[in-house]
């Protein structure tokens, strides 16, 4: 069953809002603004200025170990990458984190062919059928020319010959340091897609007055509102005449989400009809890593998302949900 963690914070400045362990692999953010029928201009501009990302078709994974690419991009701690259209429970998945960690989630045959050190996945049933190879590219043992580096490079180049579609992004924006890599591959640039919809007569649970158990159901509802689900709302509830649901999907970077969060805080602090806003951030279901570099798996659902509810009086509530094959963050 999916696990849920629910925390309530009251912080006058809200400055530690973003000190939770960040999930770098964000696929979808949706914002629910009750009693609002059109997005305010500041929010609109933030939503439309999310960084673009690149989709590379059939990237040979050994290119991520290219010396020039490492020196210009990876060592500066600014590259985010994830394999696209690969399933974590069927195929090989690759993730590149901004802290220089390259994670490969391999099935048994691929792992044995690759011939590099790795650990069996912690989500194993009777025998280990999935293995995780995690290397820190910024470590001195993985410097170009060293034994481990050459071993991994040979493994990916001649033994395993792994090729996947790859999503790549760079922060700060612009792919000047990615250009040499991109020029060798078939790539296309994409912007995150923004969708707005106005919902009418939405019944939402009144966040303050519910007991925690009902509140969990309430969060599921709020998190699912962007998909217009038809759950029954727990009591007590309030009916909102209008609500605006905005969703952004694509490969989203943490700093963009942070900016959105700041903007939402500014929005909710002003006196308004409704006293709360909520933001739901969903990660990729097929990413090999999840919260704070913990391993992520997919049993019957790969959900890993959190919902943040911000109130007028500078307090906020955080609700985290993970799937069965996930490590719940502390």
């Amino acid at each position, binding site marked *: 069953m999916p696990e849920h963690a629910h925390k309530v914070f009251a912080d006058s400045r809200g400055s530690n809002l973003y000190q939770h362990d960040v999930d770098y692999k964000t696929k979808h953010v949706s914002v629910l603004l009750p009693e609002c029928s059109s997005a305010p201009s500041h929010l609109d501009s933030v939503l439309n200025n999310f960084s673009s990302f690149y989709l590379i078709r059939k990237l040979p994974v050994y290119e991520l170990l290219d010396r020039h690419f490492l020196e210009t991009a990876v060592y500066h701690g600014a590259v985010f990458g994830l394999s696209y*259209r*690969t*399933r974590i*429970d*069927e*195929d090989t998945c690759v993730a590149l984190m901004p802290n220089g960690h390259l994670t490969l989630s391999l*099935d048994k045959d691929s792992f044995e062919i690759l011939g590099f050190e790795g650990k069996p996945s912690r989500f194993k*049933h*009777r025998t280990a*059928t*999935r293995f995780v190879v995690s290397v820190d590219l910024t470590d001195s043992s993985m410097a170009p020319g060293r034994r481990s580096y050459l071993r991994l490079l040979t493994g990916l180049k001649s033994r395993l010959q792994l090729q996947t*579609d790859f999503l790549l992004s760079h922060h700060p924006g612009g792919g000047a340091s990615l250009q040499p890599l991109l020029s060798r591959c078939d790539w296309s640039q994409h912007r995150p897609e923004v969708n707005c919809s106005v919902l009418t007569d939405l019944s939402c649970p009144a966040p303050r007055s519910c007991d925690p158990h009902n509140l969990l159901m309430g969060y599921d509802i709020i998190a699912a509102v962007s998909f217009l689900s038809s759950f029954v709302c727990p009591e007590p509830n309030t009916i909102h005449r209008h609500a605006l649901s905005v969703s952004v999907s694509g490969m989203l970077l943490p700093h963009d989400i942070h900016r959105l969060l700041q903007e939402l805080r500014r929005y909710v602090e002003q006196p308004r009809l409704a006293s709360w806003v909520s933001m739901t951030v969903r990660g990729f279901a097929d990413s090999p890593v999840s919260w704070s570099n913990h391993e992520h798996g997919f*049993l*019957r659902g790969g959900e890993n998302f959190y919902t943040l509810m911000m109130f007028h009086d500078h307090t906020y509530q955080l609700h985290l949900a993970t799937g*069965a094959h996930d490590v719940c963050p502390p």
Partner: protein
Amino acid sequence: MAVFMDLNVSFLPDRSDLRSVVETAAHLGFSTIALNYVFEPTAKKKQEIPTPTPIDELIDQLPVVQGRSRPIRVLNRLTVVMSDASHFRPNAPEYRRFDLLAVQPTSEKLFHAACMVYDIDIICVPMTEKLPFFFKRAPINGAIDRGVVFEVSYSAAIRDSTMRRYTIANAVSLMESCKGKSVILSSAAQKALELRGPYDVTNLALLFGLSDGDAKEAVSSTCRAALLHAETRRTASGIIYTTRSQQEAPQGSVDGRFKSGYLYRCYRCLCSVAIELRWNKVMMSESNTS
């Protein structure tokens, strides 16, 4: 985990129906399916084992599996419905044309023989009728040790409510004896509508008494194990495989020339051993091509 497989999709003689079934399976997320040719010998007249049609003659371009970038893989499988011990002929050459070999026993004695003795990959458990025998732990454990898997098919449950009861009852009884090990779930679909997605099949397996992990394995890792077992069975313990070839004898041969024979290639030393069978005499000639 391995890719999702459905190892029992009924072979349909009509090409467009077959094509729609294969496309549905690819759309649902199955990376490998096996077309099942059923052979039910009767005492009345001698029947021939069907010959599998090569897949490229049936479908021009295999559809790509949804969410991945590879086309679906289609294999051939033979199921022999046995009501007598003579119906299954061990080492029959016709069985070599199929990738997978399955047997459906109809009595306890045949079930015991299938688990312990017969050189097969899959044992089908009947789902459309009340089980004629009870499962015993000993033959089931024997089969698990040999690498033979038990198959539960769910499309009968979709078609009819009485069959649904039999399916669940038979499957639960099997799970109690085998404790969820070495079980595969497949559709036995006769049309595209009877196929279900791999996660739905996993949920269905929970009804049969499998745990979460076992249920997912039943659609992925255990199917992969059955395929590897089939490959090993066909290659004489995984060392030698045979291909039929018509060619001149290699140098150093005893006879000089042979009209037709089997060319054996040894995996270990990559030498080819040409064996000619003539007048019940085996003449062997060896050539080292490595």
